[in-house]
């Protein structure tokens, strides 16, 4: 898990003396961790006990105290995207001949009308899809019926045997038992 970037907010909590005095005091303080750099990040823990910590930015980052500002969630991105498009009136109002849904209706509802819409609205949808999926535009993964058809029986068994070994190694015996049963079923075919 990476925790990069810096949140410059410095929070000072001071229920005792005057804020100014305390601020002066701590701005001259060295980092309690490395004792080299100037402490610029001041944290007051209140739980489980009251404790102040004064760190430089490097040490604060290492401690995970400061982190990159929040990224947007998919839904926020979607909403933002839709609003922008509506606001700028950038889209022609294409209508799906199969289900009758217009692209504008999709923009309002956030849902498509039928599988054909992906084709009908392709030009408008692809930038949104790309953004919502971190640049993903091509499906990677399983396909309907792409399990273990007869001609794949051999490779299917190989895969399962490997999974069985992995499961045993991870001491996941419940999984191991299931995989073992699957192998037996396949072998009997």
């Amino acid at each position, binding site marked *: 898990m990476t925790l990069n970037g810096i949140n410059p907010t410095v929070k000072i909590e001071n229920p005792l003396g005057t804020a100014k005095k305390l601020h002066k005091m701590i701005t001259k303080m060295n980092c309690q961790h490395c004792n080299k750099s100037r402490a610029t990040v001041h944290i007051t823990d*209140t739980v489980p006990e009251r404790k102040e910590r004064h760190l430089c930015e490097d040490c604060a980052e290492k401690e995970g*105290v400061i*982190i990159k500002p929040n990224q947007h969630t998919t839904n926020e991105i979607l909403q933002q995207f839709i609003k922008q498009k509506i606001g700028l009136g950038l889209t022609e109002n294409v209508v799906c001949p199969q289900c009758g849904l217009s692209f504008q209706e999709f923009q309002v509802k956030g849902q498509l009308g039928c599988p054909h819409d992906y084709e009908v609205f392709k030009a408008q949808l692809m930038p949104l899809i790309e953004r919502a999926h*971190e640049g993903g535009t091509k*499906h990677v993964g*399983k396909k309907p019926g792409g399990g273990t058809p007869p001609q794949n029986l051999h490779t299917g068994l190989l895969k399962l045997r490997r999974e069985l070994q992995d499961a045993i190694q991870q001491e996941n015996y*419940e999984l191991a038992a299931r995989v073992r049963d699957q192998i037996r079923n396949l072998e009997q075919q």
Partner: protein
Amino acid sequence: MIEKLVKTTGEWLKGEGPSSDVVVSSRIRLARNLAEQPFLLTASAGDRAEIYRSLAGETSNDVVIPDAMVVDIDEADEIDRNLLVERHLISRQHAAGEGPRGVTISPDETQAIMINEEDHLRIQSLRSGLQLELLWHEVNEIDEALANRVPFAFDEQLGYLTACPTNVGTGIRVSVMLHLPALRLTKEIERVARAARDLRLAVRGSYGEGTEAVGDLYQISNQTTLGKSEESIIETFSRTIIPKIVEYERAARETLMKQHSSQLDDKIWRSYGLLTNARMISSGETQSLLSPIRMGIHLDRFHAFDIRTLNEIFLYTQPAHLQKRLGKKLDDDERAAARADYLRERLASKPK
């Protein structure tokens, strides 16, 4: 039918499985739609009824889910719908939805298929602890069995086509429910939440979108479904993200025990005191009080009851379960009193 459910607690509340001291449960859900059929937004009443009728039959076929139980959500009353939400068998949206819709449930409740939620099908597998590989096996088997019976909307470039473009591709949603009381007490929780969001994961409360993290329960799930295989998404969860968070939480618990053991025990036992003496108590307060006790059991500091009992209490003190048990609708105050009575009775009868 629902009556049968009320008597059991479901596999995910067993409190077992790998890393179950931190990982309460894990779930994998797949979104699937029928080819050449309208999505629910434009489906007519007749279309919906036909889709529901046909999928209720297919999903409960013995080769899909043996001995399945089908619940018609449109016909179920409000308490029964909410009961299914509390058991994580349907979403809040499904309970509150309209028109022909339902859910097919396996006898042990580890598998459930929602019909006519946002997509025609939402196939889920749910178990206690961190067991994503097993869940993927199970959910994949159901998916394969269904794909042999009904044609799915699928595109070579975009994968499985879903009503909302944010689910297109694999249509997979991997969610792990974590109990993180020590990270909250040591004020590290926001840091974990932000790190998770940096990785484009959603962090939510225990009942999904828009719910709060009551009782220190957090649900972490993937948000992107296109361009990554199911296996790689699952592997990132089970080998990197979740073990890391589990490690953080365990370290925080260790710190609490070493440096603040009296405060920790005080918190645990005060919670127990409230639970066993209150005369009126809300569901939210109950869950908040159960949180330090759950941690106390796993840290071997609390022995008045075990994790199975705790999970049972957790489930049966929720509004729909409480009302179902008493067989009637209750208002807020009546529920608070009934909940407190249940807690005193349930916990008093257990030997110390």
